[in-house]
């Protein structure tokens, strides 16, 4: 057992803020390892200490093992929390932490190795008796072999970066003539995002739900399962809305999937937070992948189970056991919406720029995970997710209604967001009925959202307002400055 004095955070945005808060509540100092542009973020302002580990390009900063380790070590960190994405599923990074005398807050490097490579993960699941999707996971990565395997699996099938997470490097192939281009693209994305161009192929299920089980291995070797999340609302294989529990599972199916998830965790001597992802079609479920880290959507599990997964991760890394019941009691329903900086009326193209004022409508059962504040810049260097909104209510219909209300009250100025799209999704009968599959967005929202705009009297009123809001006033941004005028700074300035 060990008590951390200082934890380094090798991440950015809202998850860095989430980890800093957990550390603060545990009485642990924080050290933020950040890139050059990220000195203008909430995490940077909250951390006890900050070190710049490199320029904006991820490969030179957030993916740079040496500079992360060196900065954490030289500033006396006892442990490193990798968050999600970036180095969170990098076994070499976990090992480098251990070699430098620091604790990696996550599973062992062996577990990461085992599950990180999707091919060895599938082999383990198969050995543990888990159901897997037909596919090709072999070492022979020649184009000829891949094309031959694609023909065997049939269409539609997918090609995917073996080291990837989420939707990176994943392409769907519907006909043979698309195969060559898809393989090339997948290899390229894998190489640039993860440094590996190894790919694998599998059958594409076309009416499946994405169901994932949260598992957690504590310091005493116990493996818990904290229920499932449904993340079927995805676009280009990136999740948009997640919820716990899933409306599609009954008790029997939940028990079956839980058993498989725990078996996988135990087979790997798993420690810390992990997620076993499945595709569910009808009553049949297939193992998709195991994520050896905290998930973006972990808050929905926290809210229905009444746990704090980040504190549990840190405590586990310190060698303390958790005090959870083996069979969690689920309470109410929770939904998460990911806010992306993009223009929903322009096919979702990224929207970057300086953040203006924001309003987060706080209230009971409403949680906001935000990494930026007014005056911060949303750049094109990183993931366009700028915040997450999580709600909890007594039932799924109530949670949906609450989320809809919260989204309508949320104000973000300066960059466009996908809020209008999120509201349309929440209103869609296929979503409210709980029948949505991973094809939901493609099927119902493949075209750009139509902006019905304002009527003539509204237009006139807004034109009038444009004149009124005018050029003066304390809320005015001038185009070239990068900070909101801060009344304290201004009064200091006038005194000098």
């Amino acid at each position, binding site marked *: 057992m060990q008590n951390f004095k200082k934890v380094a955070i090798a991440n950015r945005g809202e998850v860095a803020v989430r980890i800093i808060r957990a550390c603060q509540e545990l009485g642990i100092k924080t050290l933020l390892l950040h890139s050059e542009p990220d000195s203008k973020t909430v995490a940077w302002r909250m951390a006890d200490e900050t070190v710049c580990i490199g320029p904006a390009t991820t490969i030179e900063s957030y993916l740079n093992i040496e500079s992360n380790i060196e900065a954490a070590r030289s500033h006396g960190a006892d442990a490193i929390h990798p968050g999600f994405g970036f180095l969170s599923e990098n076994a070499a990074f976990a090992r480098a932490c251990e070699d430098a005398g620091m604790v990696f807050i996550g599973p062992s490097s062996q577990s990461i190795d085992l599950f990180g490579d999707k091919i060895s993960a599938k082999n383990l699941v198969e050995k543990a008796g888990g159901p897997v999707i037909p596919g090709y996971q072999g070492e022979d990565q020649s184009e000829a072999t891949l094309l031959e395997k694609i023909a065997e699996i049939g269409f539609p099938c997918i090609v995917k970066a073996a080291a990837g997470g989420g939707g990176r490097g994943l392409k769907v192939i519907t006909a043979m003539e698309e195969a060559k281009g898809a393989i090339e693209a997948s290899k390229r994305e894998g190489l640039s995002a993860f440094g590996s161009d190894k790919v694998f192929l599998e059958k594409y299920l076309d009416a499946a739900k994405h169901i994932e089980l949260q598992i957690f291995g504590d310091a005493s070797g116990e493996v818990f399962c904290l229920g499932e999340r449904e993340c079927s609302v995805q676009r280009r294989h990136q999740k948009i809305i997640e919820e716990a529990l899933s409306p599609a599972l009954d008790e029997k199916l939940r028990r079956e999937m839980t058993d498989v998830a725990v078996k996988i965790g135990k087979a790997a001597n798993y420690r810390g937070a992990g997620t076993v992802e499945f595709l569910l079609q009808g009553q049949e479920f297939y193992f998709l992948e195991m994520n050896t880290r905290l998930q973006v959507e972990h808050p929905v599990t926290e809210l229905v189970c009444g746990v704090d997964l980040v504190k549990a991760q840190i405590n586990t890394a310190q060698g303390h056991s958790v005090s959870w019941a083996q069979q969690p009691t689920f309470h109410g329903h929770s939904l998460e919406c990911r806010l992306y900086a993009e223009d929903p009326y322009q096919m979702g193209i990224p929207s970057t720029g300086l953040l203006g004022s924001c309003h987060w409508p706080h209230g009971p059962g409403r949680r906001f995970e935000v990494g930026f504040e007014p005056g911060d810049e949303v750049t094109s260097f990183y993931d366009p997710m700028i915040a997450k909104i999580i709600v909890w209510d007594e039932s799924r219909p109530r949670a949906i209604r609450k989320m809809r209300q919260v989204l309508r009250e949320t104000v973000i100025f*300066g960059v466009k967001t996908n809020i209008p799209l999120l509201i349309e999704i929440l209103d869609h009968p296929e979503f409210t009925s709980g029948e949505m599959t991973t094809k939901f967005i493609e099927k119902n929202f493949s075209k750009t959202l139509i902006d019905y705009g304002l009527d003539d009297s509204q237009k006139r009123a807004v034109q009038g*307002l444009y004149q*009124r809001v*005018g050029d003066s006033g304390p809320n005015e*941004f001038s185009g070239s400055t990068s900070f909101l005028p801060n009344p304290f700074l201004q009064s200091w300035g006038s005194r000098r």
Partner: protein
Amino acid sequence: MKTYWLEIDGRPVKVLAEKLAGKLWYHMDGETRVYEPESKYASGKSSRASATPGVIAAPMPGKIIKVFCEQGDFVKVGQVVVTMEAMKMEYSLESNIEGVVTAANFKSGDQVAVGQEIVKVEAADG
């Protein structure tokens, strides 16, 4: 951000608004929108995801991954002519007309700004 009350069709309507770099950001009736006077920006419309026939322009700043055509190539409507990367995702840009490529200005690895013309196609019947 400030709260304003507007009168629309004789009813009071609450609006939250702020002007940023000459654009009015406002939140009304549960939705955030942006307003900019048209006269000032009428000529700047081409910087949008291009709807100009035959012009394949960058819809966002990013890096060119591959240009699939050369000057003189014949392309069809919907044919992918360029792939680019922005915010860690790959995007495919398609030709919006059928015709002959008259300009392909970039190569793999080039950075492009929003609205920048990457490929130009001249209509086949032209």
